[in-house]
């Protein structure tokens, strides 16, 4: 049974149990021990009704730490550490290069991007911001929306600003949250010297040198086009 559903059922049971306890407590002292047992059971049910709410925040914190760690690893091209954040069957899709399936392919993708550990003069900052994490009612999967800001380049060769977002899926296996689907959407990349008023770098496309396991799930153009990755969450007030 789902954890959240269990919580709801237990809450109902707790109210019922509590009522039973009050009734019993008003009866004869001889019924005391049995009444205590009832009350203990009711209180335990209350514990279980509060627990899912606490668990949801723990999950949210764990996923934030996971994705923020991902950012710190990408910063320094720590590809092994980054790939180890994925579930074994996890997938990666960044920009327009297609979908890479499984940890080995994820690692291959990263290593193709930049030498592991970076080299002197390389900047690869991928700043992870503005999380909206939605944990599924069963507490076993989650989605996360993130914003990223990229500062990339090579000393005396190039420099770019970039922005975009992630719409990721996470999975909890043996109590550990992992990346199930990493999907980074580029919004805008520009040459530092010019800025986004003058320069726009086109989206990437599948590379012959690095064929993906699956084609891109969505083909889109980056800025100056206005494509924005769909939001996994609904309006927090209206639910629309």
């Amino acid at each position, binding site marked *: 049974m789902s954890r959240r559903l269990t919580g709801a059922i237990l809450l109902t049971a707790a109210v019922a149990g509590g009522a039973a306890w009050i009734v019993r407590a008003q009866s004869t002292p001889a019924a005391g021990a049995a009444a205590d047992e009832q009350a*203990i059971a009711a209180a335990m049910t209350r514990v279980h009704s509060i627990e899912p709410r606490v668990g949801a925040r723990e999950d949210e914190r764990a996923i934030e*730490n996971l994705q*923020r760690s991902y950012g710190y690893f990408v*910063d320094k091209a*720590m590809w092994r550490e980054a790939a180890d954040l994925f579930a074994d069957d996890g997938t990666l899709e960044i920009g327009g290069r297609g979908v890479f399936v499984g940890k080995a392919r994820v690692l291959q993708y990263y290593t193709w991007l930049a030498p592991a*550990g970076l080299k002197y003069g390389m900047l690869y900052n991928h700043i992870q911001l503005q999380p909206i994490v939605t944990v599924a009612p069963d507490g076993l999967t989650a989605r996360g929306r993130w914003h990223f800001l990229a500062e990339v380049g090579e000393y005396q060769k190039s420099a770019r*600003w970039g922005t975009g977002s992630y719409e990721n899926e996470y999975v909890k296996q043996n109590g550990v949250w992992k990346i199930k689907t990493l999907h980074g959407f580029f919004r805008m990349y520009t040459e530092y010297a010019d800025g986004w008023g003058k320069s726009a770098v086109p989206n990437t496309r599948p590379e012959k040198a690095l064929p993906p396991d699956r084609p891109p799930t969505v083909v889109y153009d980056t800025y100056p086009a206005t494509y*924005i990755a769909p939001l996994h969450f609904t309006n927090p007030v209206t639910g629309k």
Partner: protein
Amino acid sequence: MTSRLWRPGAGAFVLAILGACASSTSPQPTPAEQLAAITRELDRLQGEAERLADVSAIKRLQRAYGYYLEAAQWDQMTDLFADSGSIEIAQDGVYVGKEHVRRYLNALGGGHVGLRSGQLSEHFQLQPVIDVAPDGQSAKGRWRALIMSGQFKQNARWGEGTYENEYVKDHGIWKLAKLHWYQTFLVPYEGGWAKNHDLTGGVFVGKKLTPDQPPSEHYGVWPAVYIPPFHYKNPAPSGEAAQPALPAGASGSLGELEKAVASLKERIERLKDADEVENLVSMYGYYLDKQQWDLLTDLFAPDGSMEISQRGIYKGHAGVRRALELFGPQNIEPEHLHNHIQIQPVIQVAADGTRAWTRSRALSELGTYQRVGIWGDGVYENEYVKVNGVWKIYKDHVYTTFFATYDKGWENGAGKSPKASPKIPPDAPPSEIYESFPDIYVPPFHYKHPVTGQPIKWTPGGAP
């Protein structure tokens, strides 16, 4: 016994209780008395769990606001407001009520829903300090936005400013009661804040669409400097007595219940700790922005330390306060920018709740009008300690990734990490020797890999 009682400073309290237990002959509480105590504790924990959920919901609300704003979804944004909610952007005045909010936002968008072709409208929502009222029905939040806006082949702008917002819980749903954005700057990309004053004067549509109320505060935008008032004071001991520990040691089902409640309490307290540490990281940044040195120093533990880049270590309140003079006088002066946007915190709290650690980063926008602009990026590996129930900075250690002049960027403008000052010398040399960009250095991670649980390793990719 809960960890909360074992915090530094509470030892006397604990001893007093133990002493009272030893000297008095009060009888063991009956099971009924124990149950009553547990029920009271559960009432309290239920409230605390609710507050934890409130903080999460408020962050979601504000971040959703940012995601809708970058897609010019005015109706979605309007729906985040309470019926009587209000919006105040920079010097445009106050627009009150949901329909006026809608009209205002549509006016901001020039009557166009969705982005125009070639438009960019990134509004990153960052650095929250969230405080929920004890009754859980209202809350306040300080945030900041980093803005990248523009129109392809026409213009590009950097922007930055602070929110002081109010939220209200309406039938269980958090809504924006008051959104108030204080603009620091909105400047052309070319030349940035070093060469340009604010383009707008803080006025967007206020002259075309009459506000319901004039601006609640009149202030100047860049290169003028203004410190938006804070909704909070520095965290201080609450004055409330520590939660007494529940009676323990019962056997059977009562013992099981005691254990379950104690475990729930521990988990709730660790989550509260993480929220409080995140607030603290944000507060640190806001004070650093405006060079509010006394307030910033107060966030440190008395035996705390500060280590910035390669400047060496400054110890204790006196040392930290001395070090801060390295960055300018107390209270920022006009035409100066000292933004240190605090982002990306990985937070770990010790199981006993007495210590915490973060890896986080600052994106720095620095400079002096008509003289110089600087971009900086650094990574913090910090440690915190709970003193009298309040989280304080024990070790503040930032590693510079790069400093680059605005004009040249990191392609051509890399600056070295600043070294120890002869004028205001540190108490101890740097704990690690490294050089910033174009060199590569990875600050050691305080935490284990989130999935493998192994130490996090970095293998250098190569030297010049």
